[in-house]
């Protein structure tokens, strides 16, 4: 009696294991292309630049989505479990959703520290590293610095180089190919940057405010000055008193442009714009933020066109 019960239990477990094992023989990934999953669309765009047709890349977060708040949907696990390489933004940007996905993926390669795990922040110039005491009284601060570093083309170049090196490491036979792609990307980026800087030259030193602190790298690169954020602290929704202070400051300092990420409610920025005669510009900080932003170059083309228009309109 006892034995039969035990047998039943064991056979139940075995049944489930067999069910699971049944597919073990399935190839984890095809031999052809390197399968890459990135946390955000910008990293996917950079990986595409250097990986060319020898990679398959997919991003978890969409370009129009707030990368801080992505739901850890199981459908992402289907991508992650087959990935050869996972590229993350790092600096705790994905802390709220990525770690459980990595754990549940059942993919040893992409675990933190594994051969297929790449934290792109190691290559980039990071701004706003907090000094002194860091507490949540400052809001949802990123203790390792601002994670929106891809909005500086030079960081884009550095990250692309990092990805090219990593791809070369994963598949040494294609290392030259990845490197050539990087060189070509780097060259195109140099030319594009010249054009972008020339476009922005007349507006150097112009003051703006932003909804969230997503833009320090971008503003620094193009010589713009940030005067504050609509969020009183990172991650804290706008409050009437802070909004009033902003309006007064904007009038005093003649700030005429407000940058709003597409995933924030435009109501407060619009009402501030009405009060101050400024323009609220919904500016995507990521590739894929709008349909026409299909690669890293178009992201800057699109955003700078919006900015130039706004600066011209508020001269």
């Amino acid at each position: 009696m006892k034995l039969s019960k035990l047998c039943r239990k064991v056979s139940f477990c075995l049944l489930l294991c067999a069910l699971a094992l049944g597919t073990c023989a399935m190839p984890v990934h095809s031999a052809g292309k390197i399968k890459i999953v990135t946390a955000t669309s910008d990293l996917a765009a950079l990986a595409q630049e250097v990986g060319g047709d020898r990679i398959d890349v997919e991003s978890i977060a969409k370009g129009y989505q707030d990368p801080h708040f992505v739901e850890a949907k199981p459908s992402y696990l289907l991508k992650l479990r087959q990935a050869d390489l996972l590229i993350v933004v790092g600096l705790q940007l994905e802390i709220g959703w990525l770690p459980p996905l990595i754990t549940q993926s059942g993919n040893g390669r992409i675990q933190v520290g594994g051969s297929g795990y790449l934290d792109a922040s190691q290559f980039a110039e990071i701004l706003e590293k907090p000094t002194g005491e860091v507490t949540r009284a400052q809001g949802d601060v990123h203790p390792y610095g601002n994670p929106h570093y891809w909005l500086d083309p030079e960081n884009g170049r550095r990250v692309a180089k990092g990805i090219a090196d990593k791809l070369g490491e994963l598949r040494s036979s294609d290392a030259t190919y990845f490197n050539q792609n990087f060189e070509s990307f780097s060259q195109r980026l140099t030319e594009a940057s010249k054009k972008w800087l020339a476009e922005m030259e007349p507006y150097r030193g112009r003051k703006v405010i932003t909804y969230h602190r997503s833009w320090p790298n971008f503003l620094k690169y193009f010589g713009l000055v940030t005067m504050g954020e609509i969020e009183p602290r990172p991650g804290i929704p706008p409050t009437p008193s802070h909004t009033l202070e902003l309006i007064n400051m904007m009038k005093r300092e003649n700030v005429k442009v407000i940058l709003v990420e597409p995933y924030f409610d435009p109501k407060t920025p619009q009402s501030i714009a009405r009060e101050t005669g400024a323009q609220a510009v919904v500016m995507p900080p990521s590739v894929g933020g709008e349909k026409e932003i299909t690669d890293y170059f178009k992201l800057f083309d699109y955003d700078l066109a919006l900015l130039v228009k706004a600066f011209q309109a508020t001269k």
Partner: protein
Amino acid sequence: MKKILLSFCILFFVPAIPHAQTSSEESEARLKALEERVRALEAEVRELRVQQLTAVPSASPQIPNLSLATYSVETEKASGSAVALNAPGTGGTGDPLDPVPTTFSAQAPDTAAVQPQGQQLPNYGGASAASKILNPDISMIGDFIGAIGQANVPPALVAVGKNPVPALQMHESELGLQAIIDPYARGDFFLTFGESGVDLEEGYITFTTLPGGFVARVGKFRGDFGKVNTLHNHVLPWIDRPLVNDRLLAGEDGIDDAGLSVTRILPAPKGIFLEGTAQAFRGDSGDVFTSSKRGDVSVLGHLRGYRDITDQTNVDLGISYARGHNDLGSTFLTDLYGIDATLRWTPLRRTIYHNFVGRGEFIWSRRDQFPFAQRAFGFFTSGDYRLNRRWTMGGRFDRSGRARTANLIDNGFSGVLTYWPSEFSQVRGQYRFTHFAEGRDGNELLFQFIFVLGAHGAHPF
């Protein structure tokens, strides 16, 4: 006794023996030499201080002067006491006096005065700061619950420990310790401090790099029976747990036991996520399973299917089965069957402002007992809608039989309103109506404060 006394005396006097051997003149000369040495060292330190202060440009030139003055006064005071204190300890050893303790004690107030000016001070915390690098992520979550109104819980339920919520209660404090253990595994611990003591809610190792896509867990953890059973209190969309979890699944504790778990993503048609989980436990889970002897293990199986209907909408279905021995003895079994369904809608461009989650769980219990087995059924359905960045409202309908007396069926419904000052704190109110099988009605207003300290990791979807 004599021996003890003798050894005590030896121990006591041994350090004094060198002193006894040296003459009093010698020791006096030595003390003088030491005093001079201390003075010389002090002068040296003072000089170094001045050099340091002049080297670092200061915003306010008065501060260094002031602090220097404080310093010299303090050292004058301290030098005497330092020598007086240190002389007996160091006397006779001939070791040079370590300047650090002297200057450190003398500097204590000075340090505070200088530090805000950005002075470079010796990094006393260096070693401990470095040791923090490999510490696990530590978090503490407070869960405070209060209640007003009439609970009217029938005596039959109170007798089995289903007490009404007290007026005010620091319900639970959850300490979380989470870290990557090595390249092959990670570890998670959740200790809960309740009113009656400490409990290890979960503590397990997860092997993340097993071949064949398997993920294994070993330790104590919440069983994968449905959805609500897997959730910690602070991530529930309500203050309480649904009636069906309380009546059929051991309530707040739930199926939470020491055991092993294996999970794997299973092959499925494109776009469908299918995952199978098999778990074996010791067989002790609240009032659901009781292990009377070593062989009374309980088992649990869970199959989960998930599909994105659109980018914004997805559906999550699960079936669960658990089997174990109950408190009547090894020959009495309890079988549990469950179906869970979750529908989520989240507009990707407005993730932080709006979403909807509809949930439902249906649980059947079959419990061997005298004179015949009890077959109870219960379910809940709920919906939660996020109104804006800070407010969420929701409702829940409950109905459940009782595991031991299946014909006694309790019903209830709840309305919930939640406010988030930030991601790290939450205030919630819940109106709960319960109609007990005995004919009594409970009308309660529950309220809850949840607050998160530290780096609490993300929870599974």
